[in-house]
């Protein structure tokens, strides 16, 4: 085991790449849950984003169209969840699980019908990397951030914007009020349901962007179930980051680093003992359970999280 394997530029660059889809899902989770709706369909939103992004990239050869289609797919899936959770007041976990299964089944089904067993086309339009020319030559730093994908940078921007939105603007305050005490929010004239709709749709959009990042920036293809639970890790990052965008980003980086290590330490040993790299991948989940249980800090959900809101007089 060497320092290079632990904190080399390659590991840190991989950390950023791996953290990005998690952070996008986590951002979606933050917005939805701050408004009081649990959206475990983020995994499914990522998956439809990944798939329909590839389909659009294949048909139109335009990255912009592909990303728009991907995010629209996520918004549609999240919209179904929103109607179920907000309007119909159904169990948000059941609805979310149903949508995850639907997304997995639907994308795998369509993948087979569209592309058979040969896989998606090899010449897909891809989201470009951003070459930061002055930095690229700088040792270490250039290797870490000199040529990251455009969506990596977009994610950083989104984290800051959403942090400011939630905690420094009036609409953000309203959104949080709806998630903490919808009755009080309504009393002062905030449209509880409309706010929640917007929040859930936004969460689907962000998660789908994370999915499109996986298929159009990283893999340049779609494979069945390719999100591999990143939507759920995003939820974990949201919880571990205490339902704030910046916290979620930090958690995503921790989780991304764990995964980056599990790649770079492949086959490494300490003395005679092979490093059990696979166990590093359990880090996000173990940390999340500990955080929610209050063993590592205390992570508290918004007070009205997951509780359907009924207007007075119904």
């Amino acid at each position, binding site marked *: 085991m060497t320092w290079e394997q632990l904190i080399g530029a390659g590991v840190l660059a991989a950390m950023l790449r791996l953290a990005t889809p998690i952070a996008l899902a986590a951002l979606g989770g933050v917005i939805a849950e701050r408004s009081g709706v649990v959206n475990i369909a983020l995994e499914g939103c990522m998956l439809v984003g990944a798939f329909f992004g590839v389909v659009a990239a294949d048909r139109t050869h335009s990255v912009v169209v592909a990303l728009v289609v991907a995010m629209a797919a996520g918004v549609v899936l999240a919209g179904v969840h929103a109607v179920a959770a907000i309007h119909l007041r159904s169990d948000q976990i059941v609805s979310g699980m149903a949508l995850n*299964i639907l997304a997995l089944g639907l994308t795998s089904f369509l993948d087979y019908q569209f592309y058979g067993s040969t896989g998606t086309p090899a010449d897909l339009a891809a989201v470009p990397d951003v070459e930061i020319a002055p930095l690229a030559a700088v040792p270490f730093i250039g290797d870490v951030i000199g040529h990251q994908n455009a969506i990596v940078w977009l994610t950083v921007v989104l984290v800051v914007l959403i942090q400011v939105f939630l905690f420094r603007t009036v609409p953000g305050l309203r959104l949080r009020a709806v998630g903490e005490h919808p009755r009080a929010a309504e009393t002062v004239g905030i449209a509880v349901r409309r706010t929640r709709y917007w929040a859930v749709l936004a969460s689907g959009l962000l998660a789908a962007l994370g999915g499109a990042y996986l298929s159009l920036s990283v893999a340049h293809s779609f494979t069945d179930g390719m999100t591999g639970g990143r939507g759920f890790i995003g939820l974990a990052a949201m919880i571990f980051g205490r339902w704030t965008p910046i916290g979620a980003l930090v958690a995503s980086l921790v989780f991304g680093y764990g995964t980056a290590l599990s790649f770079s330490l492949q086959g490494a040993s300490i003395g005679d003992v092979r490093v059990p790299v696979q166990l590093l991948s359990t880090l996000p989940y173990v940390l999340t359970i500990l955080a929610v249980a209050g063993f590592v800090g205390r992570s508290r959900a918004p007070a009205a999280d997951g509780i359907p809101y009924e207007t007075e007089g119904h």
Partner: protein
Amino acid sequence: MPIVSVLFALAVGAIFILASGHDPISAYIDLFRGAFGTPYDITETLIQTIPLILAGLSVAVAFRTGLFNIGAESQLLVGAVAAGAVGARFGFLPGPILFPMVLVAGIGAGAAWAAIAGYLKAARGVNEVITTIMQNYIVVFVIHWLLQNGPMTAPNALGTPASAPIGDGAVLPIIIPNELVPLTRLHAGIFLAILAVVVFWFVLWRTPLGYELRAVGLGPRAAAQAGIDPRSRTVIAMAIAGGFAGLAGMIQVTGVFHRVFDGFSAGYGFDAIAVALLGKNSPIGVVLAALLFGAFARGGSIMQANAGVSAQLVSVIEAIVLFVIAAELIVRIIARRRGPKPLEAIA
């Protein structure tokens, strides 16, 4: 109502088949033939049904106690790993000693693993949905480690990381003679599954514990008023749920695969959520729903081979079934909005 939701889902599925340029009628006929066309197909369907029944019972017993067990998948895997480890490590022992050991290992490991989620809920107020989702992923990676470069890694010819085979004494016998149904793999695990259904019914409806669990499920506050501690019952309910799922994993090891390998479960623990909801958390309902999804699983692969319609159609149908059930709950909740007990719809 459950039949209506299944028919509706099949109808939507037919639209999908049509849209993909195939004939839905012939696809569904292939699906049905694949599941029930020959005695061999029927036994293959039953092999799929067994773990679905047990994982379905796991989710159902949690639902009955007002808990959402999304972790049946990992509880099944933990049970399988424990059974596989004990079955291989003590493989030299004779069946009458080895089999009970493997059985206890599978059930016990699943129960202990699930009880963690119950404990965290009872003692620290952690939502069991979060814990069980996280546990699902933890187990996947721990199994990667165990089988790839951990203590259970064994040389094998499967081409995928796998454990050493279990001893002959732990293997469940094939219950249908080869002359009757050639090549059948149907094993004695089906009797264990039926026994588990009876135990599920008996414990929940014929014992004080079952009464208490259901009382907690219908209303933890009322139950507490009646002197039932919801917290201890939460731990017990999760342990029972994990026991059922662990048994499912143990049966897959001893009845079907005789070892543990990467990608061991075909997502039975997730399908189990649909099984339990479609089966209304009742013993007969779970069996029938498991049979339906078992038939889908078996028939789907045949349909893909014959009709060229992706077997993933089955997941689409399953998701729609789930969604219609959710909608049905909504209708009932709205219908009795002025009445009490909306919780019963879930529990």
